[in-house]
C-alpha cells in the first residue's frame, strides 16, 4: 500500500472522485495549472483537463457563490479556499445561501458542495494564516463540518464529503499536511511515513461522516480533540503517563455523541481540546453535551484547553498554541478533582 502524507491523500481523494463522477469539478485560487499553494491539486488539471480543475479569480464569495449555482444545477463542486482565514468574504454565501437553500426551497434545490480549506496554526502564519474558524460554521444550521487528523482519514472523509448531498466545510489542519505534529517545537520534524495512518489505498473508500475514532484507549480521562490537537493529546498522554482515552471527533457536525458518552461514562473525566479561541468555541458545545449526558458519571469538572481569546500572534505562536504541556495539566486537573 502506498504511503501518503495528508496533501497526497487529499489529492488522491479528489483524483478518485474526478475519475468516478463526471459531475465533480475542482476549482479555486491557484488550484489549476499550478496545483495549489499547498500542492493539494497538483496534477489534477493535467490528468482530468481544464474543465474539471481550474483557476478562479481571487474572490472567495465568487468561488462559493458560483459553486452554489453549479451545485444547484447538478454538479458536485469541490472548491478550495486557499486559507481558512480568507473564507470570510464568502461567509454570506455559505451561511445565508449554501446552508439554507435546501431548507428554504423545501428540498427543491440543494448544494452538494465541498469547501476544502487549510486551517490552524503552526507554520508562523500570523493572524491571517493560522485561524481555526470551525465554531463559526458548526453554529450554522445546515452545514456539515469535517476535520481529519491523518492521511488515511483525510482521504476517506473527503470522499464522503464530496459524495454528500449537503454542503460540507472540510477543514484541513495545515500543520499536519507533512507530518503528525504533536506540538513539540524542538527536535526533528517527523514525516507521515513513520505513522501507520500514512498507508492510504489508491482506490475509493469512505469514512462515514459522523463517526468518531477512539485513537487511544484509556481509563483515567477522556480527551476530546480533532485535527492537530489529536496528536497533541496523544503526546500529552504519553509525556504525562496518564492513561487517557483520546477521541478523534473527525466530524464536528454531525457529531458522534454516542462514542463520546460511552467513553466519558467509563472514565468519569473529560478534557476538551481545540486550537481555536475559547469563548463560544466548539469546546463550549462539547462541554455542555458531556455535562448534560454524563453528569452522574462525572468525577470532576470538565476542563477546556484552547487557544487564548486573542488574534494568533506571529512571534508568540508557541505561547499561544495549546501544546501537550497544557493538555497534560488539564488532564491532571481533572484527576485532582
Amino acid at each position: 500500500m502506498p504511503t501518503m502524507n495528508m496533501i497526497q491523500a487529499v489529492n488522491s481523494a479528489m483524483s478518485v472522485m474526478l475519475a468516478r463522477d463526471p459531475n465533480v469539478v475542482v476549482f479555486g485560487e491557484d488550484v489549476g495549472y499550478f496545483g495549489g499553494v499547498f500542492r493539494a491539486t497538483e496534477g489534477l488539471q493535467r490528468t482530468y483537463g481544464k474543465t474539471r480543475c481550474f483557476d478562479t479569480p481571487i474572490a472567495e464569495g465568487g468561488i462559493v457563490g458560483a459553486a452554489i449555482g453549479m451545485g444547484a444545477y447538478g454538479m458536485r463542486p469541490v472548491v478550495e479556499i486557499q486559507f481558512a482565514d480568507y473564507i470570510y468574504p464568502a461567509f454570506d454565501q455559505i451561511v445565508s445561501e449554501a446552508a439554507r437553500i435546501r431548507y428554504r426551497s423545501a428540498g427543491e434545490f440543494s448544494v452538494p458542495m465541498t469547501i476544502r480549506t487549510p486551517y490552524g496554526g503552526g507554520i508562523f502564519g500570523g493572524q491571517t494564516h493560522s485561524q481555526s474558524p470551525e465554531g463559526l460554521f458548526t453554529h450554522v444550521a445546515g452545514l456539515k463540518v469535517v476535520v481529519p487528523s491523518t492521511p488515511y482519514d483525510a482521504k476517506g472523509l473527503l470522499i464522503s464529503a464530496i459524495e454528500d448531498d449537503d454542503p460540507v466545510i472540510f477543514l484541513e489542519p495545515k500543520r499536519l499536511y507533512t507530518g503528525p505534529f504533536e506540538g513539540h517545537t524542538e527536535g526533528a520534524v517527523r514525516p507521515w511515513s513513520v505513522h501507520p495512518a500514512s498507508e492510504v489505498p489508491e482506490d475509493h473508500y469512505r469514512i462515514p461522516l459522523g463517526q468518531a475514532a477512539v485513537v487511544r484507549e484509556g481509563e483515567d480521562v477522556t480527551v476530546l480533540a480533532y485535527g492537530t490537537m489529536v496528536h497533541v493529546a496523544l503526546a500529552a498522554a504519553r509525556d504525562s503517563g496518564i492513561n487517557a482515552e483520546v477521541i478523534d471527533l473527525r466530524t464536528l457536525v454531525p457529531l458522534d455523541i454516542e462514542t463520546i458518552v460511552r467513553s466519558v461514562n467509563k472514565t468519569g473525566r473529560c478534557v476538551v481540546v481545540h486550537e481555536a479561541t475559547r469563548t463560544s468555541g466548539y469546546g463550549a458545545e462539547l462541554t455542555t453535551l458531556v455535562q448534560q449526558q454524563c453528569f452522574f458519571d462525572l468525577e470532576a469538572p470538565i476542563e477546556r484547553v484552547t487557544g487564548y481569546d486573542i488574534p494568533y500572534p506571529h512571534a508568540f505562536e508557541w505561547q499561544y498554541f495549546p501544546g501537550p504541556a497544557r493538555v497534560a495539566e488539564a488532564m491532571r486537573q481533572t484527576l485532582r478533582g
Partner: protein
Amino acid sequence: MLDSRRRADNRALLVQESEPRALELRIPEAPARPGEPVDFSRLKLADPGAVRRPEVDAPAESMRDLAYSLIRVLDDKDEAVGPWAPEVSIATLKAGLRAMMLTRAYDDRMYRAQRQGKTSFYIKCTGEEAIAVAQALALDSGDMCFPSYRQQGLLIARNYPLLKMMGQVYSNTLDPLKGRQMPIMYSSREYGFFTVSGNLGTQIIQAVGWAMGSALRGDTKIAASWIGDGTTAEGDFHYALTFASVYRAPVILNVVNNQWAISSFQGIAGGDQAPFAARGVGYGLPSLRVDGNDFLAVYAATQWAAQRARSNHGATLIELFTYRAEGHSTSDDPTRYRAADEASKWPLGDPILRLKQYLIKRGEWTEEQHEAQQNEVTQEVRTVQREAEASGVHGANNTHSPKTMFEDVFKEMDWRLRRQRQEAGF
C-alpha cells in the same frame, strides 16, 4: 541639479500663493424630495429606434456606446420603430399583455390582503411588469431564472399556479415551501425559478455558477438573474461580472434600475455618475441599457442576449431602466422620501398601457377587449383567492405541521434535530 532646485522653489512659491483648499465630500441628493417639484431633467434618454443593433456575435468592445444610450422600440405614436423592433408573434404579445395584467391584478389583491391582516408582508412590482414578463417570454422554459423579490411576473408568465403563489403568501397548507419563507420568496425548480433569498444580490453569482455548470456539462440551457440598482454595490454583482466574463458563462445579468432602493435614490449606488450598464464595459461584457417599460425593447434585448449566450458568445449585462411606481414593500411609505407624483410623471410611461396601445394601433386589440380582459384577470385572481383562503391565511393556524420545520435542514435529519423535534413536542 539646477533645474530640480528651481522646480522645488516653484513648488514652494505655489504653496505660498494659494492657501490649501479644504477637501469636500459629495453626498448625492435625490432630484426631488416630498413637496418638491418632480425633476427628471437628469435622465439620459434616447429617441425610440435611435440605437443601433449589433449582430449577436459582435465583439463586446464594438458596442460600448450601447451602455450609455437607451434602447427603445415603442414611440410616442405607439409604433415599433428601429432595428430593435423584435420579431415576435402577436400571440406572444397578447400573452405578455395578459400576464402583465394578471401580475398587476394579483399584486393588488395580495397588497390588500396584507392590509387586511391576511399575510405579514407583500412586495408589488407595479410599473415593472414588462421586465419579468417580457423576459420570461423571450427565454426558453428550461432556462433557469435567479430572481430578486420583484420578479413574480416570471412565474405568472410561465403559468405557475396562482393558487400555490397565494398559498406561499398566506403560509397555509397550500404553501409549497411549508411556511419556511417570508411571503413572495417563491421557489420552483419545475418552472425554472430559483429560490428567492431575501439577502440582496447573492443570486447573481449563483446564476453565473449555474450557467457554468450548464456549459461544463454541454447542456443547452442558459441562466438569467435580476438584481436592483442599489444592489449593484454589493460584492456579489462584481463577482458575477468577473466570473461571467472570465469563463464566458451563458447567462444574462439584469440590473433593474427602478430608481429607488427603499429610500435611497439610484445616485447612492453611483447611478448618477455612470449608467449601471456601464459597469459591464470594464469587464469586457456587452452591456445594454434598455427602456424597461417598453415591452418590445425588453423582449428584443433579452432575445438578443439569449441568442448570444446560446451561441457561446457569453454573458450580457442589461440595465432595465424603469420606475418603482409604489413603495418598496408593505413595510414602506414612499411619501416620506420622494415627490408624491414622481410615478405618474415618469417619462417612459406605463408598460401595460404602452403595449395595449401598440396592439390597438396594429388593429390586434380593442378597448373593449382590454376591459373584458381586465375583468377576466381580476375575476381569476378573486376566484383563486377565495380558494386559497379556504385553506387559511397567515396566523390562522392552518399551516403545515410544525414538525416539518425540522425537515430539509439536511437531506437526512441528524440526531440533534430528531431530539430537538421531540423536545418541541412534535
